């Protein structure tokens, strides 16, 4: 009896859809800001140690295989494109097309992970470990933290894809796809910075 009172109260007074949409977007943008600050600590450490040991950074990055990084950059850029297409499709109300674009995005994310796995394996084979030097410590921490974000992003995208498949979203309500897409773009953007910093040092 008591619980009916509560659920009755909770069912009433849903937030206005416009307010909810704006709130979710603002919330996600704020969260992305904190993510950048989280990586900011690593970027700051990178800047300090690269300024202190420029030769070490210039020399040691050559051990890394630039092809792995290049391929992954294109994979992620492409996945950001398909993500944007998914958002565009759902705004037009095309659910099937949205699911297809979302699935391509997820496959790209998985391909990124697999590629990274082979790269780490090769690095280990070359005896490049986090304790080898500060450069490699940064390399593993930065790419590792980024990898965690890729997995979190893939989990979010999978749930959203499933919900899209179930018909939860349409041209009128698609906030989770847009907000989830924002997160995925952040994963991409961070990699765009990691790639030149780690692989393309002049």
């Amino acid at each position: 009896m008591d619980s009916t009172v509560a659920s009755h109260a909770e069912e009433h007074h849903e937030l206005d859809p416009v307010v909810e949409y704006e709130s979710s977007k603002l919330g996600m943008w704020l969260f992305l800001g904190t993510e950048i600050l989280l990586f900011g600590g690593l970027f700051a450490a990178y800047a300090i140690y690269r300024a202190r040991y420029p030769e070490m950074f210039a020399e040691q990055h050559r051990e890394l295989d630039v092809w792995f990084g290049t391929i992954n950059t294109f994979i992620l850029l492409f996945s950001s494109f398909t993500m944007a297409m998914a958002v565009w499709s759902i705004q037009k109300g095309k659910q099937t097309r949205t699911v297809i674009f979302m699935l391509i995005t997820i496959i790209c994310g998985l391909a990124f992970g697999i590629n990274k796995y082979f790269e780490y394996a090769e690095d280990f084979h070359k005896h490049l470990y986090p304790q080898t030097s500060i450069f490699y410590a940064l390399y593993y921490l930065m790419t590792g933290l980024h990898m965690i974000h890729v997995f979190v992003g893939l989990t979010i995208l999978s749930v959203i894809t499933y919900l899209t498949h179930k018909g939860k979203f349409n041209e009128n309500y698609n906030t989770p796809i847009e907000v989830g897409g924002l997160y995925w773009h952040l994963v991409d953007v961070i990699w765009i910075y990691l790639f030149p910093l780690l692989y393309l040092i002049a």
Partner: protein
Amino acid sequence: MSNGAATETMNVSFYEPKSILSWVLTTDHKRIGLMYLITISTFFLIAGGIAMLMRYELLTPESDFVSPHTYNVLFTLHGSIMVFFFIVPGVAASLGNFLIPLMIGARDVAFPKLNLGSYWIYLVGTIILLAALLQPADTGWTFYTPYSVKTGTDVILITFGVFVLGFSSILTGLNFIVTIHKLRAPGMTWDRLPLFIWSAYATSILQLLATPVVGITLLLLIAERTLDIGFFDPAKGGDPILFQNFFWFYSHPAVYIMVIPAFGIISEIIPVFSRKPIFGYKAIAYSSFAIAIISFFVWMHHMFVSGISQTAAAIFSFLTMLVAIPTAIKVFNWVATLYKGSISLESPMLYALSFIFLFTIGGLTGVYLGTLAVDVPLHDTYFVVAHMHYVMIGGTVFGFFGALHFWYPKWFGKMFNEAVAKLAWFLIFVGFNVTFFPQFFLGVEGMPRRYASYPPQFQTLHEISTYGSWILGLGIFIMTVNLIAGVIGGKKAPQNPYNSLSLEWQVPSPPPHENFHEIPTVTDWTYGYGKKSKTEA
């Protein structure tokens, strides 16, 4: 000041239904606030008890009650629990959760489920901390390298617990910012917002900007210990000072995460008990932001003796003094609000007035310590300990206690015993000063912090300090019993016992689910005391 706020009988109180599951899964901001309140208060009492043990050890010059290692563990636990489990997440999250939607005329925060998630993440963090007690760390709450990398105690678990808490802190701050932006009632314009909301907003921004940095710092520390890398180890090309830079880049703004909510509380209590509009509304509101911004550019004043350059030290010394300006603006405005007011000295007001007095001492001694030449001899002495506690207890905790007494009738729908509350306030005020004022002298005489034993000439002052801690402990005990007894057996609270004009007092005590029968339309600011209507400061 508002119409449409329902005073007629309406929905049931937010305490119904009472089943445990309904609490565990609640998305009601008032319930989540209450769960925070209970959890942080428990941690406050535990960490306070640990401090009493430390004071007991310091009664005699020898280290006879506990071993030096145990003493190191005790001050690490006291600091970590007080900072990370009570004062940083707690005051903002407990009072902020309860008050923000009520004060701005909303039914809940913007993301109620995320809000519940924040609480549970916080609880997971505390459980990790409890697990870390099996092999408690002895590094101090700052986890300075290289010791924190080398010590055999469990630094990883406790720092990981703090890392998890950071998530909770970030999500709560994010939730509050979006709530304040998007869910204000019609007519609740920015220049009508209660000052508590302004302070909660400034605090939330600090939480968002600073917490990720301590998160990555602690991750680096954990990586340093587990992967054997050398970020902070000079032998491997690393830099131990880098850890201090990272750490204080968070932890100095965190000081203001701790104290800015108390500024908001004081700004709410003083006008109500002076029956006067707050003086300098905009100055108080904006000075919170000035403090928040400046707080990001002062962190190196914690490191004057760590081996930083003289130029950097001089610049940071100057920047540190800038913080005193917006802080003093607040104090002057509070005092100006009191001027010619019709002051009634009820328990919340006693705490608020003590706050002004004690926080001023804490703040001004902070200026001493920010002065480069003075800091060098006083660094890491009891002077710092005393300063820090005048700000944290004299500031935040007195504000917190004041808030507990002020919003108690609204929160619990009951009244506490006012006479006992005044007695408890008196003991707390006297006990606090007897405990910490002698520590200024100890510091000036050269007593370093964080030692279990000391030369005999310091004994008298240490004894006074320890006796003070007993008075303080007794006062807090009486206050706790009084507040708990009020919940159980207190008489029913009226809707608005203190005749406040703020929105939260225009709903029943305790408030019903979803707060407002009908969302109110706000037509005036919150502080129109003693006059019919007032729109601008």
